[in-house]
């Protein structure tokens, strides 16, 4: 008798959480999206065409020439002191008054998310997150085997009343809520921002319910023709951990972000970070620090704003011209994303192969929910392609949707009709 092989001798030894890491058709389709023939409205890659590469080249050279022994050495687990000082200056633009000691520099804000999850989450704990929410955060929380309870949003962001209900429902079911994860500015993927009034209300609800807030803010400085909105941490530094990033205001390739946290939390974050990476890259921190110290970086951010605004306008105009009248979409005032809700019955995940055949790609809405919702939605990114490519991509996508609507009309909608779609607030057991 031949014994079977699974082609992976470690299969019985993987942790339980590893079992969800599998190949998928969707991932396979994204491999096609990387080809230049395909207009990819899927990825959220910052557009670096506006960066002064010659200046950056000189900065990098200067870092090595003048301080190479330090730049290429291990550094502090909490991060470079000079950069932390600069980070506090950047956060002042959003009203945050903090001390460099409050800041932990991380390898991108994604690592900050991982650290927050690591120090707070036990398996089965509940994280409250907007519906929809950032796919990278959901993935991180899942890795720590947390349960995610989504909270409905509208054009002004998270709905406070829904938050109250979610807290009450979750607790009534015995769920242990560890924190609320929110992206208040130019939300990924929803494109909306939390209004100032609601920020105060959400802070109050969280404080009353003794729930920590994780304020993820990678896009806050990328508003179009607006001043930065006051951060939630600015008004409640003792109950908000703020996550920031240089990926959108400068360059994601350097992988530098940060967390600003209450003192006790900051201590744990540093210890957790040291145990996973020892320290963030000294070289990357010093390059960023020198760039922010010597260059008109706020002007650079303005040029990013102009670049993204032009692309957003191209996308919104073309959506208006070509998308079905029954589709709706958000109109972001900054950031990278438009969230599109399609006519009843469309399943954007099932539609993706057809879109790829038509040489356009997007991210299906279900990626942004932990509970299977979102099949009738999609995230469109306008950050990377040129305005003409965006127009072409939206036109192609409109054709794909038309074909899909015809297909759905032929076979009848297999999706849940709008009128029968479940309300967002459900007992947590149904949201696992």
């Amino acid at each position, binding site marked *: 008798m031949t014994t079977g092989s699974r082609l992976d001798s470690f299969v019985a030894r993987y942790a339980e959480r590893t079992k969800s890491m599998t190949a998928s058709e969707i991932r396979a389709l994204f491999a096609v999206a990387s080809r230049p023939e395909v207009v990819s409205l899927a990825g959220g890659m910052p557009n670096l065409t506006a960066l002064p590469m010659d200046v950056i080249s000189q900065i990098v050279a200067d870092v090595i020439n003048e301080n190479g022994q330090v730049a290429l050495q291990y550094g502090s687990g909490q991060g470079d002191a000079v950069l932390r000082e600069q980070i506090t200056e950047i956060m002042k633009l959003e009203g945050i008054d903090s001390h460099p000691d409050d800041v932990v520099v991380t390898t991108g804000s994604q690592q900050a998310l991982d650290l927050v999850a690591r120090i707070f989450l036990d398996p089965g704990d509940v994280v409250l997150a907007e519906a929809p929410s950032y796919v990278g955060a959901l993935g991180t929380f899942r890795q720590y085997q947390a349960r995610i309870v989504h909270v409905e949003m509208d054009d002004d962001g998270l709905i406070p009343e829904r938050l109250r209900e979610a807290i009450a429902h979750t607790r009534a079911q015995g769920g242990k809520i560890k924190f609320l994860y929110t992206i208040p500015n130019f939300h990924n993927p929803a494109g909306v921002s939390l209004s100032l009034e609601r920020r105060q209300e959400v802070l109050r609800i969280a404080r009353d319910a003794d729930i920590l807030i994780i304020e993820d803010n990678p896009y806050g400085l990328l508003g179009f023709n607006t001043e930065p909105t006051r951060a939630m941490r600015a008004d409640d530094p003792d109950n908000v951990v703020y996550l920031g990033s240089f990926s959108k205001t400068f360059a994601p390739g350097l992988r530098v972000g940060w967390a600003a946290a209450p003192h006790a939390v900051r201590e744990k974050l540093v210890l957790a970070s040291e145990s996973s990476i020892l320290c963030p890259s000294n070289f990357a921190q010093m390059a960023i620090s020198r760039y922010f110290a010597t260059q008109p970086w706020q002007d650079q951010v303005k040029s990013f704003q102009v670049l993204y605004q032009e692309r957003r306008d191209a996308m919104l105009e073309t959506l208006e011209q070509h998308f079905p009248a029954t589709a709706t979409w958000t109109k972001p005032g900054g950031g990278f994303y438009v969230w599109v809700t399609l006519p009843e019955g469309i399943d954007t995940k*099932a539609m993706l192969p057809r879109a790829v055949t038509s040489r356009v790609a997007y991210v299906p809405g279900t990626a942004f929910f932990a509970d299977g919702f979102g099949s009738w939605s999609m995230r469109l990114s306008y950050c990377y392609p040129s305005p003409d490519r965006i127009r072409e991509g939206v036109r192609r996508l409109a054709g794909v949707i038309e074909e899909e609507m015809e297909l759905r009309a032929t076979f*009848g909608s297999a999706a849940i009709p709008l009128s029968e779609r479940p309300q967002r607030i459900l007992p947590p057991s149904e949201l696992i």
Partner: protein
Amino acid sequence: MSEMKLSRVLVLSGGLSHERDVSIRSGRRVAEALRSQGVEVSEVDSDSSLLPTLSALEPGSVIFPTLHGAAGEDGAIRDIFEMLELPYVGSTADACRRSFDKPVAKGIVESVGIRVPASRVLPHSTFRELGAQYLLPLIEKSVGLPLMVKPAKGGSALGASVVRSAAELPEAMISAFSYGSDVVIEPFIAGREIAVSVIEESDGTLTALPIVEIVADSGFYSYDARYTAGLTEFFVPANLDSILSARAADVAKKVHMGLGLRDLSRSDLIIDNNGEVWFLEVNVAPGMTETSLLPQSVAATGRDIGALYKELAERALLRKYSTSQ
């Protein structure tokens, strides 16, 4: 001209099909195996720079296509090789066309005496014009449940579903139509799923490699089950008695011959509970990834896969120069 030496193998992978990712992984493995044999290898994508690259190939170069899915296995790219008179590993453009279209391939395979599931092939337009509400119950009644729905063209189980209840049928149709304009509907043949790879030897004889039996944890050898190590159990050689093994090997060789295939192929078969061997589909550019079936079969023979690929490339070169004499 028969002294022409193999100078380079151009491994062609990627492309724009839905199976691009798998193709790149196949190409990488083939390239590594060839390099281990001391062969000079270039890995190229199928894009707008391909034709100039092909036109500039020095004599002694051979193309090893590992493009999966449309444009890779439908014969189109091989038509280009033939127009450029370039030697390549694998089946001709005509043979690919016959094999890639599942209904066409099944018709030919059936004509050489091999059992195939009776299938229905329907375009979307038929459902639209006649009404799915009438057609779907007819399909259910005529084909019976459980049944398989899959795109008429394409591989890696993309868009393929097992339908166990009438309620699942519309979604399965939509999923298959997302990958192509025609769908194949056929009865689900319960039994043991096997794959038989066939290699053409230098003297023209066909060798059926050790049979692989596939036992997917989920019960369906889906895309995830194919390309995630650990989700499927493979038995090589399959635990079949000698009569059944010989029967399956014979079927795979007949498929290879019946479709006029060349160099290598992989037939996906089912052995039903009565020991009957059914043909499901054939692959003219079988997967060569870490979890693919043909490499597992080659490994079970003790044969070095790099040596085999090199042999196939040398044969393609010989074929070109012996036929051009």
